């Protein structure tokens, strides 16, 4: 399941519409205090503006549901680019804090990329050639603190303002970028959709034998090795009266197969 976090509804509106996301009822919602929209592959939460709001909404969401990828979509200011231009964040920074460098997936390469600097107040100076927002750093730092791998986190930003374009809460710029971003979001949702569970190695162990926890761990490792060789059936060919003898025989048979680099 893909989680999208956006600060306010106008940013998220094109995605809610194009991806056919339905609003969850508060009583059964992921996050009763915030609007949440879902389909079978995507959950989108409107977090509210600012880092504290982002942090709180993320933590609350993660306590209730497991996600395989986290995407922040929102507006950002830029000193040079016009409103409506879409980017993915290649480096996320905040003053007096270490930066994040997200993984760059091949399919994201169609988008331009830019550094993203998160600030506490709406940026006026735009001193660097970078995107400026208020939630991006908190998005990454909250997830990293929860031990989410950096490879499962990304941020797409659309320019909404700059030195010559004051900020407006409108869907216009996001709509403009939607044709670029929607396909990428759909692609991410496909890639991160939960695949059926891998075959459980336990079904290959004889039910008549008792395996300790340690022996089950050993069996699991052997099973993975056997799977890599396409030799899972080894488990069904061995008949022993105790778990230890069973595992030793299976291990020997797998090793013989493993050493055959034919």
């Amino acid at each position, binding site marked *: 399941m893909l989680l999208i976090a956006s600060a306010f509804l106008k940013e998220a509106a094109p995605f809610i519409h194009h991806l056919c996301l339905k609003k969850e009822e508060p009583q059964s919602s992921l996050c009763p205090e915030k609007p949440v929209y879902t389909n079978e592959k995507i959950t989108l939460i409107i977090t509210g503006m600012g880092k504290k709001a982002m942090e709180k909404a993320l933590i609350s969401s993660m306590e209730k549901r497991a996600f395989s990828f986290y995407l922040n979509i929102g507006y950002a200011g830029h000193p040079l680019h016009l409103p409506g231009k879409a980017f993915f964040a*290649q*480096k996320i920074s905040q003053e007096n804090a*270490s*930066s994040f*460098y997200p*993984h*760059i997936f*091949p399919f994201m*390469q169609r988008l331009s*990329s830019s*550094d993203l600097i998160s600030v506490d107040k709406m940026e006026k100076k735009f001193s660097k050639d970078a995107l400026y927002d208020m939630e991006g750093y908190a998005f990454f730092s909250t997830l990293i603190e929860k*031990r989410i*791998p*950096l*490879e499962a986190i990304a941020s797409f930003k659309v320019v909404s303002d700059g030195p010559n374009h004051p900020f407006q809460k409108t869907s216009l710029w996001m709509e403009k970028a939607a044709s670029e971003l929607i396909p990428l979001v759909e692609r991410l949702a496909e890639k991160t959709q939960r695949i059926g569970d891998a075959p459980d190695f336990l079904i290959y162990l004889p039910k008549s034998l008792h395996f300790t926890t340690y022996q089950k761990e050993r069996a699991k490792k052997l099973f*993975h*090795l056997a799977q*890599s*060789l396409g030799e899972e059936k080894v488990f069904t060919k061995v008949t022993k009266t105790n778990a230890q003898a069973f595992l030793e025989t299976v291990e020997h048979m*797998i*090793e*013989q197969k*493993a*050493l*055959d*680099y*034919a």
Partner: protein
Amino acid sequence: MRKTIYIEKDLLDDPILAARVDKCLFSFRDPRVIYCDSYQEIFSRKQQNFRLQKQNPALILAKKRKEFLHAIPEKFGIGSKNSYYFSHLFNCPFDCSYCFLQGMYSSAHFVWFINYEDFQNAIDQKGEGHFFSGYDGDSLALEKTTGFLHHFLPFFAKRPQSLLEVRTKSAYIKPFLCTDPIANCVIAWSLNPENIIRLLEKKTASLEKRLQAMEKVAEKGWKIGLRFDPLMYQKDFLPHLDQLFQEVFTRVQERSIHSVTLGSFRVPKSYLKLLKKNTQDPRIFAGTHLEGNTLKSLWENECIKKAQERLENYIPKEKLFVI
């Protein structure tokens, strides 16, 4: 696909290094450039997905600031009491299933330390010795980008009392064919039977390509090192070994061989957890066991003994070093 290149900001403060950065950027088509304070921000981060990064590794340009040389115990060398390895490059474009780099590094990105002059100063401070390149990555695989030999062959040419070993699984030998050989440089190829190379040494040059490369550089007058290390144990180990030795020693004349080393598969215990997670082929762990702090092949002694007996039919004992 656009190459992502991370650059330590400080490199741009040094005109020589800045020029090297520019040259590197020009060699890629429209690279994505991201500046960082230190390569460690990207490379040393925990919880990275090595396999995901391996699909399209980024390049990180950095400056090495300390520990330019690492001493090698004499038993792992090729006849010198003063042996060191140095790494201008972390990681490798090849993907050998047994490679310890998958266990040592959490990232598959390449780190290229471009301050060659500092490595050279460190080598000069040591005086005489054997200096090995190719420990933390293949010496030649990224030569077109790094120009490592362009800087180090002339350096060692002026220091005949020291030896440079360049270890590789590549067949890229153009720099050696375009320059006169120097007596104190050994081009060393890691070798295994052809089926092992095909199955476990993904993206490397085939045995045939390596042999062709050896023949060409030997003809030019360069010294060859043969590194049967790690020799991977397999079913029908001896017939495969006999075939390998016969092929190699038919194609490479003994007079061109500087040294031969022989070793079996071994991994420090501290690298095992990550290696098991990252390897593409868990078969490499078949027939291994932990001996103290090292994972070794159960057949290590037998393999080494049999290989050594056979090698002594091809080369004088003084050229053979058993690891």
